[in-house]
């Protein structure tokens, strides 16, 4: 009687590996999404980033999660992916 075989306790997922997109050489002409996760004062940080990004020729779009306590809704993620080439997510307190 073998007690030397055990059962895998994990979800046994097959992880799909995706290559990261190449880093853009310049932000000039690109659309940068700024995602506010709804933590207090995250907007302070993102306001300043928007200023700096606009100065270097990027166009900026602002997004906001309904709550920092839950993952971003699928629709919001899709919206950002289709409207932006670059995204910055801000955590703040």
């Amino acid at each position, binding site marked *: 009687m073998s*007690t030397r075989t055990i*059962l*895998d*306790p994990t*979800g046994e*997922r097959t992880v799909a590996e995706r290559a990261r997109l190449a880093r853009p050489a310049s932000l000039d002409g690109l659309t940068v999404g700024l995602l506010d996760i709804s933590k207090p004062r995250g907007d302070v940080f993102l306001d300043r980033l928007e200023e700096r990004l606009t100065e270097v020729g990027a166009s900026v779009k602002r997004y906001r999660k309904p709550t920092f*306590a*839950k993952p971003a809704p699928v629709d919001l993620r899709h919206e950002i992916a289709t409207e932006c080439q670059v995204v910055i997510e801000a955590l703040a307190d």
Partner: protein
Amino acid sequence: MSAPTLPDGLVVVVKRDCETCQTVVPVLRQLAGAAAVTIYTQDDPDFPGEPSAIHDADLAVSWHHDIETVPTVIKVADGAEVERTVGWHRDEWERLTGVAELGPDLPAMRPGCGSKSVDPDLVDELRARHGGSVLRSRRIDVADAEDEIELMFNRGWTDGLPVIPPTEARVLAMLEGTSRAPDEIVATVPPDLVDVTVEKVAIAAVMAGCKPEYLPWVLTSVEAVCNDEFNMHGLLATTMPVGPVIVCSGPGTRKIGMNSGINALGQGNRANSTIGRALQLVVRNVGGGRPGEVDRATHGSTAKLSFCFAEDDESSPYGTLAGARGVEPGVDALTVFAGEAPHCIVDQLSRTPESLANTLAHQLQAMHHHKLILAFDAILVMGPEHARVFADAGWDRDRILFELHMRLTTPVDQLARGAGGIEEGIPTSSAGAFLAPDTSAGPTALPKFRPDGLMLAYAGGGAGLFSALIAGWVNGEMGSRPVTRAVRY
């Protein structure tokens, strides 16, 4: 695995380690001379010797043909059982075999012995070996020189304490605790959003140290936390030191031996300690929620190992938490709450309900930060001595909560950012009103808790004028709402 076919004629299953089997050896010789007889021996291959027997070494014949007693005589025709008799009973044997005058020197009857295939020490292994492959999980062979406990540490499958190796036999035994099929999907577990089956929950329950009768509570707790309402993902990812607190009630808590008395919120009781642990192992191993990865808790808490307790619903003066949330009395149920480790509130002198309510309100106001309001729920666990002060005065659950809420309303100017020399606080308008999101003005006094944000539970030992405060995490739609479920067996 298909059952081995029995040969036509008579089949007798025996074992040497049974006095009745030894007694009927002369009868077996009589039968062998008169009919087609096949004898299976469960233990000694040389028993009974004459006539010879087939050794049922792996007990496959016995297991598949449900032999519970030896000797068992089975009449077989066309490969199928016609009838059987167990033990030694001369009339029955003669009728079934059609052979007269069997064992004339033997007593008329003698009860048989337990079959080796139903030996409690063997049955789990036999179920694993012969029961067919109902389990779908990947098998991992442990090398001879490898220690399975260390293997599981090395693969990152533990919460930092050793786990019980989930062998097929143990998992099958665990699954006996529920009527649900092993391949039934229980929930989708965050953060990786993996569908978890009853089988995978049973594996976690074995690893945590659960008994099979705890499994329905584990399954129900997994269902209760894995939904948008409870928001296990957020609870896992937060920097706050919170985890799923499981508050159980109903007669089933006593059947499985849960602790609702002395040290109910502490260590030492197997059911309390392992049910919550199994839930967390599901989140860790199936959902992929591990500290330092998606779990970002700044300090964490030992309560994240397991925080599960039973309410003493038989002596509670104000019922159960599940009852207050709509579950009928006498129904086994649990409530999951996003909470911290318990915090002790001491008041050993109050003998009037007003005085004790004042104490509790002061401590509740201070929860997390005395100037932060409405954002966090709480469970207040009273033991017999504090609860008696209210019960003796005729205060029921509603009255206690009403009186506490009354004492937990604070002028906004005391809660404002900067008030009392403390920068933390709530945002206010220049007129001194609460600046709720998207409004310019609001009320001038605010409650600590939402109307249903303060909950009562009842547990603890008979001595001690204390209550335990379980502080919550971000509440409501923005965070986590408590979920109450009847236990599904």
